[in-house]
């Protein structure tokens, strides 16, 4: 598997292959391969001398957040990866082929649904009320269309960057 990962604004090419029961990760221009073994919270990574435990979690905006020995690294993945496109910015979400995805701006919960799946909305219509840090915000439709894929449910805690709903162009609905 080859991918490009972006750390601190710099793109790095990596190659992962499975062999002998471990993963071997090569980094372009990075010398010897690193060995990765899975753990409940992420991976142990060995560079021959040192073996560290790396915690891995999903962060806001679709980042991968890696923590090693108290240091935090935030990675954005390239768009080429199958099945997941790189997310842009917080809150607003992205638009692909006329679809608009709306995501949570930060961790919080939906306290009220104003529209249901299947309903027509105009750009700017309020769709739901989201509470974060004890403040309530109305989340509006970024485009006209039909509400699809309503993932938000009243009262369910959500992380930052989670999908709330999608607005599909009306003609395709």
């Amino acid at each position, binding site marked *: *598997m080859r*991918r490009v*990962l972006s*750390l*601190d604004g710099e793109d*790095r090419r*990596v*190659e*992962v292959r*499975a*062999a*002998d*029961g*471990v*993963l071997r*990760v090569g*980094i372009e221009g*990075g010398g010897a391969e*690193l060995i*990765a*073994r*899975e*753990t*409940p*919270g*992420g*991976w142990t*990574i060995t*560079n021959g001398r*040192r073996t*560290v*435990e*790396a*915690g*891995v*979690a999903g962060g806001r905006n679709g980042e*991968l957040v*890696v*923590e*090693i*020995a*108290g*240091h*935090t*690294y*935030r*990675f954005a*993945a390239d768009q080429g*990866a*199958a*099945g997941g496109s790189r997310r842009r910015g917080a809150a607003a979400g992205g638009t692909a082929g006329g679809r608009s995805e709306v995501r949570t701006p*930060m*961790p*919080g919960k939906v306290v009220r649904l104003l529209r249901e799946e299947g309903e027509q909305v105009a750009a700017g219509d309020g769709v739901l009320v989201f*509470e974060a*840090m004890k403040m309530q915000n109305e989340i509006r439709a970024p485009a006209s269309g039909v509400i699809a894929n309503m993932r938000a449910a009243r*009262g369910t*805690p*959500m*992380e930052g960057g989670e999908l709330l709903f999608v607005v599909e162009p009306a003609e395709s609905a």
Partner: protein
Amino acid sequence: MFRRVLVANRGEIAVRIIRACRDLGVSPVTVHSEADRDSLHVRLADESFEVGGAASRDSYLNGERVIEAARVMEAEALHPGYGFLAENGGFAARCAERGLVFVGPPPEAMRRMGDKAAARAAAVEAGVPVVPGSDIVAGRDAERAAPEIGFPLLIKAAAGGGGMGMRLVRDPSDFSDSLREAQSEAEAAFGDARVFLERFVENPRHVEIQVFGDDFGAVVHLGERDCSIQRRNQKLLEESPSPAISPELRAGMGEAAVRLARGAGYRNAGTVEFLLDPEGRFYFLEMNARLQVEHPVTELISGTDLVALQLRVAAGEPLGFAQSDVSLRGAAIELRITAEDPFAGFVPATGRIREFRPPAGPGVRCDAGIVSGSVVSPHYDPLLAKIIVSGPDRETARKRAIRAVRETRLVGVASTLPFFERVLSSAPFRSGEFDTSFVARHWPSLSRNGEDGESAARAELAPLALAAAAAELWRREGANAKASAAPPSRWRLAGVAEAHRERL
């Protein structure tokens, strides 16, 4: 001793109380909200009763439902922990009416200490120093009272709140103008122009004394805890002994706290909070009529189990020791690990905890309310776990605390772990010379070179982090792939790691 006790709380303190019950051979039962059905405290209890929805007011604060839970599960006593119903004198009285022993002070003592003015009066009565201040004053009387109190001082609206009608006066020549402003602001805001004056204690330390009383008139203290590392009045780190306290001062504060508790007819565990000024004078701040979050600090240096003691005393047993039997050994530090991001203004973090592996080994205790897989929801206090370390002296405890923080694995939510690593390693903390302004004064610089900053150590580990991110991508794509080389045996040990090993 009771046969069964209802633990009317959640999170780490519920787990703490359940452990004390087990250590005493008492059956612990709990209550939970809809959101907490699978929480650790529910798993560890013998039974649990669902008292309502996720919001605290619907569940943990719903006194009637909680008392009903005690009846259904046949509990003889109720331990409220801290927060929620712990300082609700009316609730304590209702428990007594229903024949349920409330593990805490008598309702009258709770009510008296819960009212700031009454508590201050009780302190004055007991000869405990309070922050110098005046009664309600105006005009000439105020002008006369001010120099007696001394500057800097605060002018406070009697009906005030949220800082309205409050003025800090440093220069005596500003007093008259400030008084007029405060009065007219109070009049405008509350329709009540009454104000009083209070000495402003600058850069105090926050030092509190643990007291304990039984039904037979015994009241003892178990030394102090220094809680000066705070952020907006929220304690973050507590330690004992206080680096600022001499044995004489400890004895003086301890005696004052015992006098106050005795005078108020106090029983069971309580804490008397003081402000300590840079000259070593202490002033009564308030009394917390309950178990404190930071009680383990005292347990480690005194060799006691305060929760077990609470249960014994509530069951009518005598304290069993006198002040002269109390021996304090070594030093202890507690860190409150909360789901807050210290690099983003301590914004609360929520989500599922992918892995939690607490620190362990010599001199390390961890009281946690979470396990791997727990969900941190926005409904409750963000406290996840407390790490409490001890050692023969403060410096040993400090180094051990750094080790414990580094050893802790907490993956999936942001936490205050990196805050503590930096604070514990900082020169001002190491010196012991700081006050309640520590976080406001030092965190801005300590947090720089922060998670996005560059350091040699961080750069050295960057390739390893890159490899971890790459491995994680590989795993997630594999988990999504429909086809895999060979289906793993259904009867093998389970787990993702195992399944992948088979795939390789």
